[in-house]
């Protein structure tokens, strides 16, 4: 026993020392990356991590961040490493697989985000002050959380009763262009009697029709779609509480179809609150919100206004607007709202895209300090992977600025003229054009082990805006 005592004391001393060292040198930050579907969340995180690793390897892949990290002309960055997955309960973000997709012989875009996934990085920095350097390297542990933005749109549902939610949702579905896209489901709801005894097959049929209607709306560019998990179900797609849909409001007896739908709605809300909002949403310190502004613009007026409404709600939630089901959280320290796919726009027109993003987000940012870097909310224009090259071609008898890219599935590069990008809320006359789906360009050739990062637009400025005060 006497012999064991010194060993125990040594272990205890080492633990205390490690804890003190962590307290002084380690800082943990939860950075959440989200966006409505097709905004490019997964590829954004992949490019961000790959370029951080390349920067640590001695390549100037993120110039604005490198400038922020310089002190007295010397780079303070001493290393970046991916932390092992450990024994976490959250799905691991498979960075290696996403890099492999971009580095394939015929590169392709990584699969879309279907569930919450996390990746942890450690950034090692030298302190600015000479006395501080005596304490050793600072370690910034960055937990990057990737989650579908559609799920956030479920937050307003959580303090609503099923009947109120159904009334609001059906009213929305009956407006153009949703009414056309959801015609089958609206026809079903018209004939459905919620007061009748619950018929499992009928309820499942209604649920399938509602999911198909939401999918059709999403394909048409609409973004304000609830519940978000019907579009991005995650791993538990077939649990019974998911099988509901909005029905005509009323009072229903126990055992009726309407009562079962209401019970499922309540169970869904409870699961989202406990499984996502309370587990993850409260932990975010910093947030990057990706928005496919161009896609929404070319999808037409309804899609654009729908996106604006969704963005406004997301910004309000992220800034801590009180009210929803006691889930008010303190404001996130910094939020970056990013218009993605900037490589579809020639460099000369990107300023207009940023102004358009500002117009889209302005209702939600009132008083939020959207000065583009300073203040808690900043606006950016970015492309996580720069897949095009600027060029000029003759069009309609004039030289116009275009981007040159190889559309996915084709074997020759084609010029893409982005058209007018309004530098503010689009005027009435803008909506006269037909719906246009943004082309998807093949990612550029990239060697996974080259250590030179991934070509991008604006990732460095986003990192400075979101993490600059910690560096």
């Amino acid at each position, binding site marked *: 026993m006497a012999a064991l005592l010194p060993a125990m004391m040594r272990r205890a001393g080492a633990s205390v020392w490690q804890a003190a060292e962590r307290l002084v040198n380690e800082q943990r930050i939860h950075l959440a990356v989200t966006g409505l579907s097709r905004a490019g969340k997964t590829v954004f995180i992949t490019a961000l991590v790959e370029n951080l690793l390349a920067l640590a390897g001695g390549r100037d892949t993120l110039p604005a961040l490198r400038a922020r990290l310089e002190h007295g002309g010397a780079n303070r960055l001493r290393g970046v490493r991916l932390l092992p997955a450990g024994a976490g309960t959250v799905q691991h973000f498979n960075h290696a697989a996403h890099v492999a997709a971009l580095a394939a012989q015929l590169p392709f875009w990584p699969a879309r985000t279907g569930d919450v996934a996390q990746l942890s990085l450690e950034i090692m920095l030298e302190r600015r002050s000479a006395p501080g350097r005596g304490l050793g390297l600072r370690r910034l542990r960055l937990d990057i959380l990737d989650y579908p933005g559609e799920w956030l749109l479920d937050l307003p549902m959580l303090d609503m009763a099923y009947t109120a939610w159904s009334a609001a949702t059906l009213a929305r579905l009956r407006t153009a262009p949703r009414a056309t896209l959801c015609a089958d489901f609206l026809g079903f709801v018209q004939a459905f009697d919620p007061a009748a005894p619950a018929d499992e097959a009928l309820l499942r049929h209604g649920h399938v029709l509602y999911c198909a209607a939401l999918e059709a709306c999403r394909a048409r560019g609409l973004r304000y779609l609830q519940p978000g998990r019907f579009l991005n179900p995650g791993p538990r797609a077939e649990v019974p509480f998911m099988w509901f849909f909005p029905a005509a409001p009323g009072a229903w007896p126990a055992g009726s179809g309407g009562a079962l739908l209401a019970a499922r709605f309540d169970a869904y809300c409870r699961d989202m609150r406990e499984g996502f909002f309370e587990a993850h949403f409260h932990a975010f310190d910093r947030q990057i919100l990706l928005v496919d502004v161009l896609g929404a613009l070319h999808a037409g007026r309804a899609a654009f206004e729908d996106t604006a409404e969704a963005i406004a709600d997301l910004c309000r939630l992220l800034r801590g607007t009180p009210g929803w089901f006691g889930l008010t959280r303190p404001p996130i320290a910094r939020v970056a709202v990013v218009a993605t796919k900037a490589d579809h726009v020639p460099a000369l027109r990107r300023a207009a895209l940023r102004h358009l993003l500002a117009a889209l987000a302005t209702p939600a940012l009132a008083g939020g300090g959207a000065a583009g870097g300073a203040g808690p909310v900043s606006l950016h224009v970015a492309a996580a992977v720069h*897949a095009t090259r600027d060029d000029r071609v003759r069009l*309609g008898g004039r030289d116009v600025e275009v981007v040159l890219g190889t559309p996915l599935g084709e074997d020759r590069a084609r010029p893409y003229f982005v058209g007018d990008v309004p530098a503010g809320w689009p005027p009435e006359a803008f909506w006269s*054009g037909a719906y246009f789906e943004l082309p998807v360009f093949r990612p550029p050739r990239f060697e996974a082990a080259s250590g030179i990062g991934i070509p991008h637009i604006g990732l460095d400025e986003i990192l400075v805006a979101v993490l600059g005060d910690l560096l």
Partner: protein
Amino acid sequence: MSGHGPGFVDVVPGAAPAAEPPARPVLMAALPGAPAVIEPDWQPALLGVPARASSLALLLGGVALLLLGWVGLSAAALVLAAFDRAPAYGWAAASVLGAAAAMIVAAGWREWRAWRTLARVDRLRVLLAGDGEVEQARTAALGWVAAVTRHLPAAEAARAAVAGAGSLAELRATLRHHVAGPLDAAAGLAGQRAAVQAAALVALCPHPALDGLLAGLCGLRLVREVAGLHGLRPGGLATLALGRRVATAAVGTAGVDLIAQGLADHLLQHLPGVRHLAAAVPGATLAAVRLYRLARVTAVACSPLAPPRG
């Protein structure tokens, strides 16, 4: 009107108005000769390791200062002592020391000019690798073209093409095609000549231990020759700096080792002198391959189109 520059539009009576570009997005058909894949114009610069004066550098600096101070003070004392003996003797001593000092200053001036030329190439390299203003890069590129004019077969065309480049990508492509290409070919020829020379010297060398020394001397001369082709005139110290760049470039082009055997075969096939010597003296091929490779690597190190150093 070009469509992107500001200017007045004079309305000609009866003429049809110029067509406006469509406001809606258009994915056009592929143009003739369009590439299959868009290669990214992505060359992130190498970041340097923060430099701090090492103990050895401080030691050498101290010793150099001590020696220079000692020499300078001794010279002054010598002149003063000579004037004490006789004015004519003093003037003679001052003249001798003045002439020596002038020669040292002239050598220093040459070194400084060589350093400036190296720095100019480094600056152009950074400008070409960045995404800043094309104007600055074009001016620097024209300066480089002027320095290498006599080694270019179509210097005037190269100068005109560089002056007309409208973007950094275009400027890089123009420099690669009109300037770097001919200089690289000339460096290859210089490498072949040096390879034959080195092989012959190694064959004539009376002792194998001297092979390395001979190859080293040939290499030094070759580095200066290739640098001269690229508009650099390195002196002694500037050659040392250039040597460091060559070493960095050699690391960057480590893949060359993989094709070393192919290179040796190429040399043996195309340089009959080396082929005959290789048959008689085994070390001759190795020396020739090293010299030829050194020429290539030096050309990379001297070119502003290589990725910038930190």
